[in-house]
């Protein structure tokens, strides 16, 4: 086992946010924002250290960062492991979390009277809890730890949905919770079946012993369906729009940009790392077919929305669809004996650029709501006058969702499109292009409406602090400039990963 200082950073990445939660809870409502912001700053340094180390090993040994808890190695002990996928997700989540906390600095300030108030307390604690559980999802190397991490993520997400305590948001939160609980129980059932058959839950050990047989297929199906319910892939998406659109802007950004990615990442781990030799191409095609349906239905329903926040929420439903197109592309390439790495990189870029762009859009919608006092799409006049930076951010984030160069969305779709053509699955390429077209329609509608001049004498309802606008713009710019990652000399995604074709044992 290679233990370096970077291994300890993995432990810190999980421990630090949860320490912040406990500390914030003890110190209480008035100082919770200070505690949260300090934790976020420290956490950023930790993640920065991990990324620095990963970039160093990328050109050197090329091994994943590992930490064996208490020195007990698997199968008895638990291993934390960060490969290229984990490091990239850790970094993306850290960026979104820190910019969302900059934005939320004003929205969730302590009450003037100095009394403890519920909304800021819950928001800041849950922000840290979401961060800690996501980091745990990215670095755990065993299926049961992943189950606990997933549940923690749900428990942190549900209170955010019901943050303002109105009836309809409580209802949305309860529906979300019921979906998520069924999802994690199905996942747990799959994990239990795997343990019964192979006697281990460690991802690496399991991938060596798992065989393509009825029990593995059943376990994979149960776990995947459970995770799809949590990820809100069509047709299990019905809980998402009310839950994400009803929450306050900063909470919606966290839920839509980050929380759904946790369970998606787990599907990725299962299919690519735990059971690559169990997966069949037709199963991957089914997953992508659901993704394609999500893209078409989500985008069309988004077009019909009258409210900005609901439109953005339905756009998330559609964008989640894109995340599942990579599965048949990567496995198709691997089956044909070709390099599947571009498809995987494309999928990762799609996730990260969606996380950045969607957070920017929800935060922008929040600022627009504050300025206008409503978010009716038909009446966005004057927004560009009052909030020039926010409308720019909205346009840049929209460009990334559509996939215009040089955005992250463009590079992701480019990699996925070429993978589709190379593996002879042009139909997924067609779905991507149609989805991009539908997305561009609603992005243009929003931007054009908000560029319309306001009536004479119109005044914004609230003056929005400049730094909130800058946080939104920073998120949108990172999504837009992510495409420049293509110029980067190191291939971080493949750090510590075995190529899919080798794992499968097929030529």
């Amino acid at each position, binding site marked *: 086992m290679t233990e370096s200082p970077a291994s300890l950073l993995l432990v810190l990445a999980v421990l630090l946010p949860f320490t912040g939660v406990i500390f914030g809870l003890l110190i209480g409502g008035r100082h919770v924002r200070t505690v949260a912001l300090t934790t976020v700053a420290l956490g950023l340094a930790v993640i920065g250290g991990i990324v620095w180390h990963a970039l160093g090993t990328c050109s050197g040994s090329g091994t994943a960062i590992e930490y064996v808890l208490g020195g007990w190695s698997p199968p008895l002990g638990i291993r934390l492991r960060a490969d290229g996928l984990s490091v990239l997700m850790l970094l993306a989540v850290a960026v979104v979390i820190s910019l969302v906390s900059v934005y939320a600095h004003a929205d969730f300030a302590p*009450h003037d009277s100095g009394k403890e108030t519920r909304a800021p307390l819950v928001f800041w604690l849950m922000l840290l809890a979401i961060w800690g559980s996501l980091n745990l999802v990215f670095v755990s190397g065993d299926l*049961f730890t992943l189950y606990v991490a997933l549940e923690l993520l749900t428990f942190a997400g549900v209170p955010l949905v019901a943050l303002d305590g109105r009836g309809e948001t409580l209802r949305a939160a309860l529906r979300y919770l019921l979906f998520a609980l069924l999802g994690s129980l199905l996942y747990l059932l799959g994990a239990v079946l795997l343990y019964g058959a192979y006697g281990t839950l460690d991802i690496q050990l399991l991938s060596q012993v798992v065989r393509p047989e009825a029990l593995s297929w059943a376990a994979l199906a149960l776990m995947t369906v459970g995770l799809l319910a949590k990820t809100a892939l069509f047709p299990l998406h019905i809980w998402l729009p009310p839950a994400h659109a009803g929450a*306050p802007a900063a909470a919606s950004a966290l839920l839509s940009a980050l929380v759904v990615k946790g369970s998606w990442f787990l599907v990725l781990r299962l299919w690519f790392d735990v059971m690559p030799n169990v997966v069949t191409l037709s199963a991957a095609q089914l997953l992508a077919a659901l993704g394609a349906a999500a893209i078409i239905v989500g985008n069309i329903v988004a077009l019909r929305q009258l409210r900005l926040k609901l439109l953005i929420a339905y756009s998330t439903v559609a964008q989640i669809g894109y995340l599942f197109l990579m599965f048949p592309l990567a496995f198709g390439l691997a089956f044909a004996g070709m390099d599947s790495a571009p498809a995987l990189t494309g999928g990762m870029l799609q996730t990260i650029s969606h996380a950045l762009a969607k957070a920017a859009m929800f935060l922008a919608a929040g600022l627009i709501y504050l300025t206008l006092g409503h978010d009716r799409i038909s009446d966005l006049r004057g927004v560009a006058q009052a909030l020039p930076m926010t409308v720019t951010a909205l346009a840049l984030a929209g460009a990334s969702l559509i996939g215009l160069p040089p955005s992250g969305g463009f590079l992701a779709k480019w990699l996925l499109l070429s993978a589709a053509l190379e593996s002879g699955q042009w139909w997924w390429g067609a779905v991507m292009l149609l989805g991009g077209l539908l997305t561009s329609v609603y992005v243009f509608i929003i931007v054009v409406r908000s560029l319309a001049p306001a009536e004479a004498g119109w005044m914004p309802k609230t003056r929005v602090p400049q730094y909130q606008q800058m946080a939104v713009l920073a998120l949108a710019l990172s999504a837009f400039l992510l495409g420049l990652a293509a110029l980067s000399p190191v291939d971080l995604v493949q750090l510590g990963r075995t190529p899919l074709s080798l794992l499968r044992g097929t030529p």
Partner: protein
Amino acid sequence: MNTATLFGLCASMLIGLGLYGLLTHPHPLRKILALNVIGSGIFLLFGAIAFRGAAAGMNADPVPQALLITGIVVAFSASALAVALLLRLFEVTGDVSLANEDPAAHKDTSKDRPHD
């Protein structure tokens, strides 16, 4: 039929019953209970697997029991959170139905400043 198989079959029945209840009952409290029945089924199955000692050919396998305890704690917190939400929903709206697809909900669904 040996003991492990019997327990395994009971577990499958519990999971099936729970799933049926979850899908057919519209009342949220019944759904929460159904989720607990599914959970008990899974825990029973895990117990049966531990009993079988499938892993290493031992008489009984301690790992599933350790995991079970964690699983039970997680399931308990989940139920507590769900029931708390349900109670609050009833306090606020006087109703516990999960269907909210009335047109009024689409008219004004977003409010951004948090209130207390």
